[in-house]
């Protein structure tokens, strides 16, 4: 490295420092706090200097070693290796993963906390696979997927609490309702181009949430619905003391009562639901409608000229994606036994879209990896409650910057007509 370069990088680092000072100065340095009447300012200059110092140092080190480049190649080598491995040994990998998922509840280190996280990850995997049909296969950016999740959860909760029907009847009904909403929304808006569609679906998600908050008579407003029936094991409830003349799960199988039974059952339930979603997606991809989705994603005009009806084709993708969202929603309702509009905010949609895109659009394995990674990150930072979402957002940015096509970008179009498309 020459002297000129060093001077240059020192200058550059100082410039970074000035920018960092401007960024952190007011927001971090001058903390507003209410005291009695009005707001007062508590300065935190120490923190600002630490942050600015870190920025300068970081920038200088990056310049000095051009560390960014090595890091970048390392990361992309790792992920491309990962994609080639997952592509070659896809079958073995899938079987191993499923086997691991099946024995997971009985592993020695698995406790209640692990099970809860695993159920959460599986719920996101299922949502990711459901959305993957819409975003990954059909190429429609849906930023309001949580609406269908909410419709599924609320229709399950309302049907189950009003009519007292069992989980297995309500589940398909919730799915059908969600699919119906998918068609309802999709019909007018699917003619729109990508970004317009994104914002309309986002608006739809918000509309559903606002209606849920304000429609007291039906949804009980912000208080949500309580006392949603828990699922039963083919008619056997998971109760400590079953009603007179009724068997419960542990009495029927002569087991010691444990709350883990229900958790393990829920775990298998979501595992099966998720695997059904995956199986369905893998099969439908090979059917004419699945091929039409992928063709539409690549080139809509070519599709039209070949006689594919774009609106109907997109509508099926939208409805099927919504249906799986509805299934996941009813699972969520039965697991929580309580739902409120708070669980269905935009951030959920953002997380699901992030899982699909970060995983590499259209890649089923990618969705699994991205769910584990993103939910894992937020769980790791659980003790630092406040920093958790910063880490989450930061991870989204970093993955996109270093690997714009997602962790597993093995979607290779067979023929490219226009060369490199934006």
């Amino acid at each position, binding site marked *: 490295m020459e002297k000129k370069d060093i001077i240059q990088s020192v200058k550059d680092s100082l410039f970074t420092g000035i920018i960092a000072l401007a960024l952190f100065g007011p927001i971090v340095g001058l903390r*507003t706090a209410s005291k009695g009447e009005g*707001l007062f300012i508590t300065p935190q200059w120490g923190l600002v200097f630490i942050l600015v110092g870190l920025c300068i140092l970081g920038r200088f080190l990056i310049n000095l070693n051009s560390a960014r480049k090595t890091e970048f190649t390392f990361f992309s080598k790792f992920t491309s290796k990962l994609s080639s491995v997952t592509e070659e040994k896809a079958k073995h990998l899938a079987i191993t993963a499923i086997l691991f998922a099946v024995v997971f509840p009985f592993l020695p280190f698995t406790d209640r906390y692990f099970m809860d996280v695993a159920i959460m990850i599986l719920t996101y995997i299922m949502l990711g696979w459901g959305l993957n049909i819409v975003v990954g296969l059909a190429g429609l950016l849906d930023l309001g997927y949580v609406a269908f999740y909410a419709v599924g959860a609320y229709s399950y909760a309302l049907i189950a609490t009003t009519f007292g029907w069992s989980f297995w009847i309500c589940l398909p009904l919730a799915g059908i309702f969600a699919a119906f909403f998918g068609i309802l929304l999709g019909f007018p808006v699917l003619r729109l181009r990508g970004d317009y569609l994104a*914002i309309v679906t986002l608006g739809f998600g918000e509309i559903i949430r606002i209606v849920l908050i304000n429609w007291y008579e039906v949804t009980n407003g912000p208080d949500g619905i309580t006392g949603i029936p828990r699922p039963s094991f083919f008619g056997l409830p998971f109760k400590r003391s079953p009603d007179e003349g009724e068997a419960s799960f542990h009495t029927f199988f002569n087991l010691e009562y444990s709350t883990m039974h229900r958790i393990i059952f829920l775990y298998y339930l979501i595992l099966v639901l998720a695997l059904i979603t995956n199986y369905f997606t893998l099969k439908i991809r090979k059917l004419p409608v699945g091929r039409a989705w992928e063709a539409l994603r690549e080139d809509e005009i070519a599709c039209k000229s070949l006689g594919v009806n774009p609106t109907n084709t997109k509508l099926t993708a939208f409805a099927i994606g919504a249906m799986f969202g509805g299934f996941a929603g009813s699972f969520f309702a039965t697991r929580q036994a309580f739902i409120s509009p708070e669980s269905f905010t935009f951030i959920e949609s953002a997380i699901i879209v992030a899982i699909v895109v970060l995983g590499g659009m259209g890649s089923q394995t990618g969705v699994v990896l991205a769910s584990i990674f993103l939910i894992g990150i937020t769980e790791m930072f659980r003790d630092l409650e406040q920093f958790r979402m910063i880490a989450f957002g930061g991870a989204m940015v970093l993955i996109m910057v270093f690997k714009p096509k997602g962790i597993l970008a093995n979607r290779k179009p067979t023929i490219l007509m226009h060369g490199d498309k934006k």
Partner: protein
Amino acid sequence: MEYFIQQLVNGITLGSIYGLIAIGYTMVYGIIGMINFAHGDIFMIGAFVALISFIIFGLTGVALPVILLLVLLIAMLFTACYGWTVEKLAYKPLRGSFRLAPLISALGMSIVLQNYVQVAQGARVKPMQPLISGGLEFFKNSEFVVTVSYLQIFIVVLTVILMGIFTYLITKTDLGRAQRACEQDRTMTALLGINVDRTISITFIIGSSLASVAGMMFVLYYGVIDFYIGFLAGIKAFTAAVLGGIGSLPGAMLGGLLIGLIETFWGGYVSLEYKDVAAFSVLIVVLIFFPTGFLGKPDIEKV
């Protein structure tokens, strides 16, 4: 009738704020074709910077117009730094990659900014005493007195002035010409010796400054902010940009006004709870009949 005029005045004020934010969306969309999801949070940061400077200057006892001017400049400067940095960190490395990548990166950035402000400034709402009080009253003899507060006049006048400067900047200066050229064909513009990266950076700086002005107006108008205001204001402003035809600058302002009016009238005449629903429903209806918004260029796909 008097009630109608009152709602009209309120709607125009709100519409000015949305319009200023919408310009940032539409400019960025025009030049790099991405939805800058973090823009709503940039607006929120602008509001926070304005609030902090109001508190500081409030202690010094400088005359009100001077305070307003200083806060305006400070908010624009610091918020522009945020806009610039966000572009450099999260969007620039993604230029030329596939369409969804910058969007996801922007979503991530939006989450980061929101939670960063929550950590740095606390999650509680921040109230501020009204600085500009009083107003003009009309129709004093009728049952309903229409009040146009000085604050509303200030907001609308400031918006008009800024729009004037901004329109001049875009239509008459070299910078604006470079920007419009980048919008049409980035490769060709680069070949003609225009620094495309710099032009894009400046776009972000202008957009963020305008958003920070909207943030300052928001603080003054509502008197209370928190770290979450960027989300709803952001999507409504984006709705405004789409409504007016994304990529079109007069469209953004028109869309902002429309969204502000729709929201206020809906809140005034139909139901207050569902005023947010109204804005989105109108968007859906408009897009069905005008798929590219009111002033957007029809989008012809060539094979």
